[in-house]
């Protein structure tokens, strides 16, 4: 069980005011926290299916559906930009690193990607922000603006978190791409392609990369969880009012209904993305669609 008491948190204003046990008890009753846990959980489950999406926040009484409607687009944009940027950057870099294995290009790619995997993004974020302050006396805007309101301000505020998320995300993909390309290029069909006189570029892009794409796409999907967790702190640092920051805040104050609803939403997103990736497998490698026939047990007939 998550320890802590939301009622005390509300009444004490974060732990700095005195209140009586009677008031605490009355608020507990008002919020329905005196009901049996099963009753509370049942109430929440019902609210998830009746269109209320978890009911209301215990801290501020706002409908959770409204909170999600406000926060989800921010995180969606952030993650979409980060995934797009990382795919655009990481796959070519991974191919390049494999192609130029153990040459300076490979070393340079490693130099960029290993810190990307190793450094916590919130730490990098603060250092970069401090660097910008010290050198350029500049910082990103502090009030979030959607791209439909002001595209330039939106770009200024979201550029750095996207870059940091993409750095972390793509670092892993670059390493995976490099590893799988290196594995594939020693296969017999690549040798055949070389024997047929195909160019190195053609072999890498049409044969090696395509065969390495399945694990790369798998990693892309699995990495989404990391990407979403990366938004938790970055959204707070950069003042982005997204799901990540909202979830952290809800957890800190024990806003159980919000935590449960947002966690359920994130699980749903993860499952959906992995389902989509499963479907993409068939497009990337048609053999996967045929696999039921290929793997049917031999009956002797």
């Amino acid at each position, binding site marked *: 069980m998550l*320890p*802590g*008491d*939301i009622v*005390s*948190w*509300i*009444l*004490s*204003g*974060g*732990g*700095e*005011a*005195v*209140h*009586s*046990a*009677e*008031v605490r008890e*009355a*608020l507990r009753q*008002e919020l329905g926290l005196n009901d049996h846990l099963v009753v509370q959980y049942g109430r929440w489950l019902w609210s998830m299916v009746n269109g209320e999406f978890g009911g209301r926040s215990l*801290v*501020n*009484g*706002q409908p959770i559906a409204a909170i999600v409607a*406000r*926060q989800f687009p921010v995180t969606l944009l952030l993650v979409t930009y980060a995934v797009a940027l990382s795919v655009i950057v990481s796959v070519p870099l991974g191919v390049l690193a494999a192609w130029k294995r153990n040459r300076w290009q490979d070393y340079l790619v490693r130099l*960029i990607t290993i*810190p*990307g995997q190793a450094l916590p993004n919130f730490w*990098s974020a603060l*250092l*970069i*922000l*401090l*660097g*910008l*302050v*010290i*050198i350029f*006396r500049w*910082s990103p*805007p*502090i*009030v*979030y603006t959607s791209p439909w309101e002001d595209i330039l301000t939106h770009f200024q505020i979201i550029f750095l978190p996207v*870059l940091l998320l993409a*750095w972390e995300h793509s670092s892993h993909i670059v390493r995976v791409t490099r590893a799988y390309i290196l594995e594939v290029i020693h296969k017999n069909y690549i040798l055949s392609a070389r024997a047929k006189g195909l160019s190195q570029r053609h072999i890498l892009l049409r044969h090696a990369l395509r065969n390495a794409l399945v694990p790369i796409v798998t990693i892309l999907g699995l990495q989404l969880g990391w990407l979403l967790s990366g938004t938790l702190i970055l959204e*707070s*640092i*950069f*003042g982005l*009012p997204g799901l990540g*920051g*909202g979830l952290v*805040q809800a957890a*800190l*104050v024990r806003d159980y209904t919000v935590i449960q609803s947002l966690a359920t939403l994130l699980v749903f997103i993860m499952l959906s993305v992995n389902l989509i990736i499963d479907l993409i497998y068939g497009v990337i490698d048609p053999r996967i669609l045929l696999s039921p026939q290929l793997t049917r047990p031999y009956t002797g007939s």
Partner: protein
Amino acid sequence: MILGFSAILVMGLILDYYNQVPTPISNIPDLESIDPNNQEKDVDISPSFQDDQGGDLDDPSIQQKRGGILVLANRGDPPAGFDTMRTSSIALHHVAGALFGPGNLVMRCRENMYLVCPYLARSWLPNPSFTEWTFTLRNDVFWHDNTQFTPNDVKFWLNLSISGLKVGDKIRAPAYFEGDLGEIEKVEVIPPVQVKITLKNPNRFFPDILANPRLKIAHPRHLMEPRINDGDLSVSPLDVGLIGLGPFKFDNYEPGSIMQVLRFDNYFEHDAGGDQLPYLDGIDYVIISDPVAMDIAFRTGRLDGGARGFGHYLSEERVVGYTRDLEDNVHFSQIEGGTIRLAFNVLKSGPWQDMRVRRAIALWIDKESAIPAVLGGFGWTTPDISPNNPFKDKRFVVWPKFDLAPLDERRDEAKKLMAGAGYSNGFSMGHLCRARHTQACQFLKDQLVGLGIDLQLHIIDEGEWNRARVSLDFDTQPGALSVLPIPEGTEGVYGRFSLSPDAYSKHEDEEVDRFYRLLRDATTTERRIDIWRQLQKYLFVEQTYIIPIAEATYVVPYRTYVRGLVIPSEDGHTNTDFATVWLDK
């Protein structure tokens, strides 16, 4: 692109390293310059009505400029639907001062927060036994929807605060401060503009209680009553459009981003020259939960003022960064803040139940070293209530008055006490440690090693802290609750556990009750101060239920062009209305 940022990062770190030369902070007084020998010197509480930068707010020769938007950081989203009955969170009250006003029927005076000034009431009168208080309201106060503020609004607010609501199975909890209001027997409206509040027991300090800035009236009867009658008992100020009585009216709120307020043209307060307040066109409160992000935004000119609240208050190191970037363009306001302390749960079995052990720990701790080690260089050793507070025992202003011997001698005495109690080899003792205060916990742990005490830190976040601190599941705790800046207001944190479960130290000492009874019966300020001194000596020395170590000085940055700020000497919830602020640019 990534390489570019890596280069920026490295260059930034190099430059930062070479910029670490300490910069003199000209506009922060040297706290060490306070003469520890001059302990009987009176604390100046004269009502000079100075703004925080020395500009005389009453001086008609100063021409305040009207207009402009003040951009302030706010520590987080105001919780609980902006309901001032629900929470004292500074994230709410930093914003709520502008929306709902700095006070209630009365307020803490801007020129001297220890005095009570009229606010929504223009005068008040007690009966001879101090059981009835009659307030006469101003007749020029309007809600932000231009509805007249009436005595019925006061009655509605007080009843809602004290009793909450109960309709069938539904309830609305009373206000968290209902205990502070005391036992109100009834509230009567005396038409056309008076309210009579009848108390069950005499209370000479009822206006002091009402002046608490947390008791803001944010509940318009004409808007809330219909919602309540429709069954929405938990209706909050946010639900009715944040219609308040303060100098600024609600304009826009984007959770997680920004809260915007605009000048209320029908606001009743005027300055000494007769000009209507407020001077500003509006205030933007930018929600910035990360203190470093606030620093960066301020240092690059995106903010006019910092947030109030622990974590966002500046440390000495952070002030250096501000002054390096902004030089004379930044001003640091100081508010006496929370105290680092060690409070014992003497209701739990352990060596600390022996008064000699508690006293030994008090003598052992090097309190002065807590200031640089824990308080970021801003603070002083003091027992309780701000040094500027007239009720403060002046002998305590520079600690330790009761422990004047050099540290070595005190530590020798501490060892003798420990030996006398049978603990010369020390013992192990638990300590509830708030995750946000780990530095203070580590300081205490390091300090007590020399006394043979192994302080086991149980590091907990705010959620668990709020549960554990009112329980008996701990050996010691830091305590961090705010109290009214009057002696009578401290019972909630020093009283007996059965009467005050939030008390720092958990004890059932009836002698403490006796002191508070004496305080309530005292008829003169001198008598109150005398009792208060005796009580402090009893709590901090004779019984050592609590060891006050050092008090933080909270530092809030503002740009120098932000003029007319009224910064309270303590309690950051005070003077958050910004009605007298103007921009000199």
